């Protein structure tokens, strides 16, 4: 029996569009827009002015709070604007706009640190923070904060999340195939930083070549184990991953560290290894550009801050009339409408769907078929939550655990009545949060 969790769905994966495409380095963008808040937590503050000249890797945004990370220039050039700009979350956010000088010069302050064996845990964490590393798995949580759990939590397991359960996306898959050593090095740094002795790398069984690749890279390292998981969405959700790999259940309202686990995305590990090897902060990442509406689907190594439209251009542009452009995968990705918005650290994929492929449904009344209940990996009653949300019954929604919803979208995916369950629940969560804040 393959390890997995209860609930979940089997959407069409469509990974064959890009899983054989090697990672390509993207063309140097003419202009990058670096938002000051690409992570969960306090945004950082710009420390450059219009007209300043900056170089690749230079810090341009300072993180003042604990749960925050600095931002860096991903190219060399001139700062042309420091102002609110559209970003993938929609709306405007304070950003630094850099016009490329075409040279892609490295900032002088960048040099490789000591080798891992000579670094202390605190030095590692500091490097990670200064490099602006946030989780590349999606949520964008500052990694060094995650790596500093209070000692009483007794963290004893690190899990590398290489499940990549989102349909279409193959960035982590290619990473594991092409740079397995980086993932392993990053993981070792995490283990050293946290003092944890045991770790797992979880991979879905639709990427067996990646399993082989990483196993080869591990050779005889006994404290790191590869776990092959069933292919099922959302296998990569950290709660599901923890359940599948360790059998532990993160308590409702709790964090993975409450059960002694830290989960990191494979890309995050690679980013850490990049700092260790070159000293370069997190200024580029692998993004899968794919979908029926793109001419040449690719896995691209892009500079953070590259406008979405530039990336689409590099992949041959739109095929047919574009219907939806999603940042991320089809299950959790954010629909975009402003293509001048930049890619950010959490952009694992850019999915373009042709207009004809975008299916819109009118919801009809719930027939209480319980498909959503069966699909929900958290075992919630999505239909009840959605009904409460429609009637503004936030207290009831909270008592039926709306806050535990991970917004995976399984319920909406299966609902034969086409009810936007996940959206209703999201609204309920937002109301509950604001009423909690008031108290």
């Amino acid at each position, binding site marked *: 029996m393959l390890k997995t969790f209860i609930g979940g769905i089997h959407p069409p994966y469509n990974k064959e569009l890009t899983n054989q495409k090697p990672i390509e380095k993207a063309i140097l963008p003419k202009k990058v827009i670096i938002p000051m808040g690409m992570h969960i937590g306090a945004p950082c503050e710009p420390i450059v002015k219009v007209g300043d000249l900056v170089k690749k890797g230079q810090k341009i945004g300072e993180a003042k709070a604990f749960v925050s990370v600095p931002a860096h220039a991903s190219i060399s050039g001139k700062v042309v604007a420091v*102002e*609110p700009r559209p970003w993938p*979350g*929609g*709306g*405007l956010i304070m950003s630094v706009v850099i016009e490329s000088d075409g040279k892609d010069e490295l900032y002088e302050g960048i040099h490789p640190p000591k080798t891992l064996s000579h670094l202390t845990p605190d030095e590692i964490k500091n490097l990670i923070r200064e490099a602006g590393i946030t989780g590349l798995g999606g949520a964008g949580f500052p990694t060094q904060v995650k790596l500093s759990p209070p000692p009483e939590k007794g963290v004893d397991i690190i899990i590398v999340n290489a499940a990549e359960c989102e349909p279409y996306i193959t960035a982590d898959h290619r990473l594991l195939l092409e740079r397995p050593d980086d993932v392993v090095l990053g993981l070792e740094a995490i283990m050293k930083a946290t003092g944890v002795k045991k770790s797992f790398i979880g991979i879905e069984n639709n990427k067996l070549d990646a399993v082989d690749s990483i196993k080869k890279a591990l050779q005889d390292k006994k404290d790191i184990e590869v776990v092959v998981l069933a292919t099922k969405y959302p296998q990569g959700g950290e709660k599901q991953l923890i359940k599948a790999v360790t059998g532990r259940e993160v308590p409702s309202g709790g964090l993975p560290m409450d059960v002694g686990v830290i989960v990191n995305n494979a890309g995050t590990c690679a980013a850490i290894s990049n700092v260790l090897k070159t000293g370069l902060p997190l200024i580029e990442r692998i993004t899968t550009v794919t979908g029926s509406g793109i001419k040449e689907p690719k896995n691209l190594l892009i500079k953070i801050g590259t406008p979405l439209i530039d990336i689409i251009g590099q992949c041959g542009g739109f095929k047919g009339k574009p219907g939806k452009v999603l940042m991320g995968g089809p299950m959790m990705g*954010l*629909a*975009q*409408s*402003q293509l001048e918005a930049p890619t950010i650290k959490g952009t694992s994929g850019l999915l373009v769907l042709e207009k004809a492929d975008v299916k*819109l449904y009118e919801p009809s009344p719930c027939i209480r078929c319980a498909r959503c209940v069966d699909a929900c990996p958290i075992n919630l009653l999505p239909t009840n939550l959605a009904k409460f949300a429609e009637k503004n019954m936030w207290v009831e929604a909270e008592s039926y655990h709306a806050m535990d919803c991970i917004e995976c979208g399984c319920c909406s995916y299966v609902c034969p009545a086409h009810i*936007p369950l996940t*959206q*209703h629940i*999201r*609204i309920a969560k*937002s*109301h509950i949060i604001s009423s909690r804040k008031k108290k």
Partner: protein
Amino acid sequence: MANSILTSMLSMGGLGLVLGGGLALASKKLAVKTDPRVDAIVEALPGANCGACGYPGCSGLAKSIVEGKAPINACPVGGTPVAEKIAKIMGVSDIDSEDDKKIVRVLCQGGKSEAKVKSEYHGVKTCKAASMVNNGPKSCSFACIGFGDCVKVCPVNAITMGDNGLPVIDGEKCTGCGLCVKECPKMVLALTSSKNEVHVRCRATMKGKDTRAVCSIGCIACKQCEKICPFDAIHVKNNVAVIDYEKCRNCMLCVEKCPTKSIKSLFVERKKAVIDEEKCIGCTLCAKNCPVNAITGEVKKVHVVNQDLCIGCGICQEKCRKGAIEMVRNE
């Protein structure tokens, strides 16, 4: 026959005595202090304990009314007369005095024909839901989304959706409860005193050209209002004009000047100064203080207001020591 009547009277009398005594004793010994309003409401209610209200009996309803969990007209049996009594007991209808009434204003004019739309939104049709998807479908991230969450929440039906997809407030009905203000995810609504008649109906803090790119009626921070305001009451802050209501006198000059019409008021409501000839002693104070020189007249002679020039700021009225000037609404 007489016998049976006697027995019957005796036993009923006995029952009455025992039970009356028991109840009397109980009400003396077991008295529990309750909110006097609860008792008062119980008195007012029919006391049928029929449960038709959905609460556990009349005292149950009384308790819920006092706790604010039930409306004052919850008793279907008692009807309006009872509801009125309860209203008195609960002391409701402490609505603000008429002149200091607060009402809600819509601070966005980017309706269907004015504001650009950046995306085609599908999904749950509420402003809240749409605002959570890509920050709403309109290009201006400050714009009213127009699904009417405010309409749904208003308890007195004071809001309707206009043809251009923006809410319209019925100032007569609005009680200033502020529920809609809390509900609006775009913070497009604001409570202001009903006395304030001039409002900047735009909150977009983008640079002027960016605002213009997305909306034909947004504030472009051109500062013309700032320049014309005789009372220094309006200033452009963070790319958008803001009125200081301490200083604003409803003269509406800024409204006339604004090139994008993003400042708005109802011109019919502009007041005009009228001088009472009986009272005017010709002291010239008004003429000296008028910011637009709309008043003329000689010392010790009755002064005249040029109605075309008067902007209705009311300074003259304030300055006149004889109370000879009145501000009159131009019907």
